[in-house]
């Protein structure tokens, strides 16, 4: 059992030792370009709020590309994963794109799940907040740049979607004519990112509005009061005694929910990793049936304008190629044994935890300084261990380790002997995995 848990850990260190210069360089590239695009977006926001938001897409896209590229770098050291990938590909068309086109395709495939994850954990909000903070900083004293996010609530949004649809269409056409394919592929990716970025952010905002509207209805509050009354009949029958605020605490349910999501995040990252490695499935009957149902539903929308439909389809009909892998990734993870899942969750969180303590330890090592001095020093510490907000792990000591760990877990899952004996239902062709391993050996 301990050997099972130790295997991915040893592999993590092996991967890290073999690839650290590349990984660190990529993280740094991500930081440099992320900063650059953030500045450009903020400056563009002064000219036009819509343009600023559109350029903000590039910030999120940079982060995604770096993550994808890091996973791709590790691929040569992951024989089982590569074998699974090849098996999946030979079952499908068999076409193997290469180089920049492959990365671009990878980014497109990972785009929606990545952003969905990004939005679900509120990171999209982080990026947007950071953006509005930068624009505020840039505004000359006493002169307001206005709320740069006001466009999110206006119908200019539709215009933006329309424009990026036009550009995407043009890029698609150019790509078909065969001129500079990877360049146009990247243009397509940027346009699609823009939709998703704006779309998800708006949805998450409108969701709040809808909930707020529901909450403001009397019917709902009556229902809720009734529900509350049923749930806690005695507590509400008597007035609560006055409790000093310091004696109250977060209740157990909230704590458990927190813990659940805390433990879920590593699993989601593993799924993203599986997705990036292109572990597609094409013949999962259960999921296909659901897909056809959704497609029939989608047919009714064929009357709406095409660019809006394209936009909507990104969230609905495109899910066959995008969500099926997720479903499958979850299946791999959960079927690969409790020991591995536990190793994943605890290990991932341990990296996190160590990074935070390393941050704290470094501050103690450097010692007290004036705030302005520490503002400068903190950038150095953040570069090593990630931001103290812990909203994104871009520390050059942490992020490579995290990626290596996720890849190592995935590799271990693919290489599990259990999958090779009872893997008839698995579309990855475990036979292929065994063959390649034999070849490598």
């Amino acid at each position, binding site marked *: 059992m301990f050997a099972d848990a130790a295997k991915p850990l040893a592999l993590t260190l092996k991967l890290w030792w073999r*690839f650290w*210069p590349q990984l660190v*360089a990529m993280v*740094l590239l991500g930081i*440099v370009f992320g*900063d650059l695009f953030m500045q450009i977006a903020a400056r563009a926001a002064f000219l036009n709020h819509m343009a600023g938001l559109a350029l903000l897409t590039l910030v999120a896209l940079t982060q995604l590309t770096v993550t994808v590229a890091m996973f791709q770098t590790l691929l040569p050291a992951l024989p089982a994963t590569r074998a699974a990938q090849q098996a999946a590909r030979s079952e499908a068309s068999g076409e193997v794109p290469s180089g920049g086109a492959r990365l671009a395709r990878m980014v497109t495939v990972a785009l929606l799940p990545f952003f969905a994850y990004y939005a679900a954990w509120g990171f999209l909000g982080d990026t947007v907040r950071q953006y509005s903070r930068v624009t505020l900083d840039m505004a000359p004293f006493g002169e307001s740049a206005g709320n740069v996010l006001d466009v999110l609530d206006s119908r200019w949004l539709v215009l933006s979607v329309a424009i990026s649809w036009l550009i995407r269409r043009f890029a698609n056409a150019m790509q078909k004519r065969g001129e500079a394919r990877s360049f146009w592929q990247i243009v397509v990716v940027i346009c699609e990112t823009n939709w998703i970025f704006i779309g998800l952010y708006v949805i998450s905002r409108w969701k709040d509005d809808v909930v707020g509207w529901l909450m403001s209805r009397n019917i709902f509050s009556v229902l809720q009061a009734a529900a509350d009354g049923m749930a806690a009949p005695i507590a509400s029958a008597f007035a609560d005694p006055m409790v000093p605020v310091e004696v109250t605490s977060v209740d157990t349910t909230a704590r458990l929910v927190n813990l659940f999501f805390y433990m879920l995040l590593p699993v989601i990252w593993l799924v993203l990793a599986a997705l990036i490695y292109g572990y597609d499935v094409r013949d999962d009957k259960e999921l296909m049936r659901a897909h056809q149902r959704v497609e029939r539903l989608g047919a009714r929308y064929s009357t709406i304008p095409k660019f809006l439909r394209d936009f909507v389809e990104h969230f609905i009909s495109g899910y066959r190629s995008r969500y099926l892998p997720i479903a499958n990734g979850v299946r791999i993870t959960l079927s690969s044994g409790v020991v591995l899942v536990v190793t994943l969750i605890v290990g991932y969180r341990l990296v996190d935890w160590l990074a935070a303590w390393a941050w704290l330890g470094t501050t103690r090592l450097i010692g007290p300084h004036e705030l302005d001095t520490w503002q400068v020093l903190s950038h*150095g510490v953040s570069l090593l261990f990630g931001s103290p907000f812990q909203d994104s792990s871009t520390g050059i000591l942490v992020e490579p380790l995290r990626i290596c760990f996720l890849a190592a877990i995935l590799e271990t899952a693919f290489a599990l002997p259990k999958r090779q004996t009872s893997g008839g239902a698995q579309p990855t062709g475990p036979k292929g995995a065994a063959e*390649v391993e034999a070849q490598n050996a």
Partner: protein
Amino acid sequence: MTARSLDWESGQGERKWRRRSLWALLLLVPLALAGQAYDSVKTLLGGEDLFPRQVAWGQSAHFGGSDWKLTDLRGAFGMSSLPPDSVPVLADFSVKVGDPDLQKLWLGCKVMLIDAEGRRWSPTSAVSLKAPGDVHTCVSAIFSGARRGDTLNLRETFLVPRQATKTIRPAVGLASERPHFLFFQLEKD
């Protein structure tokens, strides 16, 4: 092409990229740090009096749009109700106003005494000595409405331990000139 030669080739490529990345780190680490810390370094330099500009006794120096001259630095001995072994010190400046936009140029004005060990004293509120009517402090001068060519008399009062009085020298810092500040030499220097 056999799998083995493919592996060998990708191994070559990997080693090449590893070497390239190592070199790139030399460039990328400073670049990333510079990009992130640029604003903070600017704030730090704009908020601290770091680099002294020496001013000889009797000379005046152009600083924050005006000409600054130290006219006097003396102790006010024999005052009661002060901590033992402490001496109030008065620093007098005469400033010929060049650019009259003092509210901008003199923002964050800070007069201090610096001794041989580098310890810094700020003006005190523990001692208040009577001063003639036309004497300002650095901060009150900002709002004096002085015009170009006017001469302002500034006086700041400090409380300094007796043994430090031998080596103290006055200094002036302004937000518009930071990180540089004026460091005046005394007659005896």
